């Protein structure tokens, strides 16, 4: 338990720094903003209590917002995503429930399950974030396009992270 807290704490700090100092400065064109930090919410174990996921989402959002001077924007989107996670997990639960000690990643749950799980949540997060950022519906399709394109790039990064995860655990 304590080891888990330290492990996830370290991942948290790494992700926040990576997002704030590196990813925020990378641009794939004008529409796309890769937001890898959401992978933290995706990677939390199944046993994490729902209320804790919400609070972690809130804190994570605050940290990311501090880097971009947009207090509240990423926070609300991440809280929304954390909220969606608990319902989605129930919705796509395999027959017989989640196995004890398994984690929401490609290795335990398979690629199809993970793609469904991750892309829905990332899309929820991005669509919420970009409409909050725009704060209006006048440029509906432009904002929608940004959300779709950014979801695509974030998903690529999320899958790359899964690749690393996969390798390191099979070796040991």
């Amino acid at each position, binding site marked *: 338990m304590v080891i888990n807290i330290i492990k996830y704490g370290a991942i948290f700090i790494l992700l926040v720094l990576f997002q704030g100092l590196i990813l925020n400065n990378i641009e794939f064109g004008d529409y796309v903003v890769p937001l890898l930090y959401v992978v933290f919410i995706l990677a939390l174990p199944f046993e994490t209590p729902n209320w804790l996921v919400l609070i972690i989402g809130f804190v994570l959002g605050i940290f990311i917002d501090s880097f971009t001077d947009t207090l509240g924007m990423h926070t609300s989107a991440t809280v929304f995503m954390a909220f969606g996670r608990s319902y989605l997990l129930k919705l796509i639960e395999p027959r017989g429930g989640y196995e004890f000690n398994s984690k929401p990643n490609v290795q335990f749950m398979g690629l199809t399950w993970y793609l469904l799980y991750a892309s829905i949540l990332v899309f929820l997060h991005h669509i919420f974030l970009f409409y909050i950022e725009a*704060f209006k519906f006048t440029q509906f399709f432009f904002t929608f396009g940004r959300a779709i394109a950014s979801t695509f790039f974030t998903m690529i990064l999320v899958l790359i992270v899964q690749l690393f995860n996969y390798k390191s655990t099979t070796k040991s």
Partner: protein
Amino acid sequence: MRNLIRFLSKNSFIFLFVFLLFVSFVLLVQNNNYQNSKVFNSSNFLIGNLYSTINNVNDYFNLKEDNAKLAEQNAKLQATQIGTFTKIYGTTVEINDTVYAQKYVYTSAKAINNSTNRRENYITIDKGSINGIKSGMGVVSPKGIIGTVKNVSENFCSVMSVLHEKNAVSAKIKKSGYIGSLVWELGNYRIAQLRDIPNHVKLNKGDTIITSGYSLVYPEGVIIGTVKDFDLPEGNNFYNIDIEFSVDYKSLSHVFIVKSWMKEEQKKLEALNDMEE
């Protein structure tokens, strides 16, 4: 009983969600109104220092270009040095040079964080209240305008870039002197729109756009960019003008913060007009 507990615990989750969402919306609205968040922004001590450390490393990659820019400016300054002038007469001449009172003072500073891909872009700069920087001052670079100082902490300040949807700059066509308002919208960080130029003004591609000096933030005549493209929609009284910025906002490094000595005086005078009406 078990059902009751389950029902309650399920609801408490939703209550927590609504509460956290509410808190973040409050933060968001406060933040949008007037950056009330003095603690959680990139000019705070912790993240400001982190950025400046990272920036120290990044600086090495720009050394060559920065040196060229500095050399260019040195050359210009050298031209105004006393040594470059010679006396016209051999005897002593008395010159009354108080015709020119100093109106603007420049503080040199360095951009340590910058964004160009958001709707509201901010730049963090390594000068703060201990250097006499105040909210509302203008920021320029040798090549053109940068933005307006928004939040100031002890050692850093954050600047609302011209690449900010809500930052409109009063701009002037250098040749004809017509005043318009320059706004930027997300899409291309090199292009902005100049509005309110009436249809009888003669325009050419490549015309220089400068600041008007009306806003009291920037001195008059600081370069903004050049006219890239313009058209006059049918039945419209105003041009649609695309301006190409003279500054590449992705490669900011050394900037100047502009302080206007006479801003207070001018504001006070203009406030008198409002009071009499």
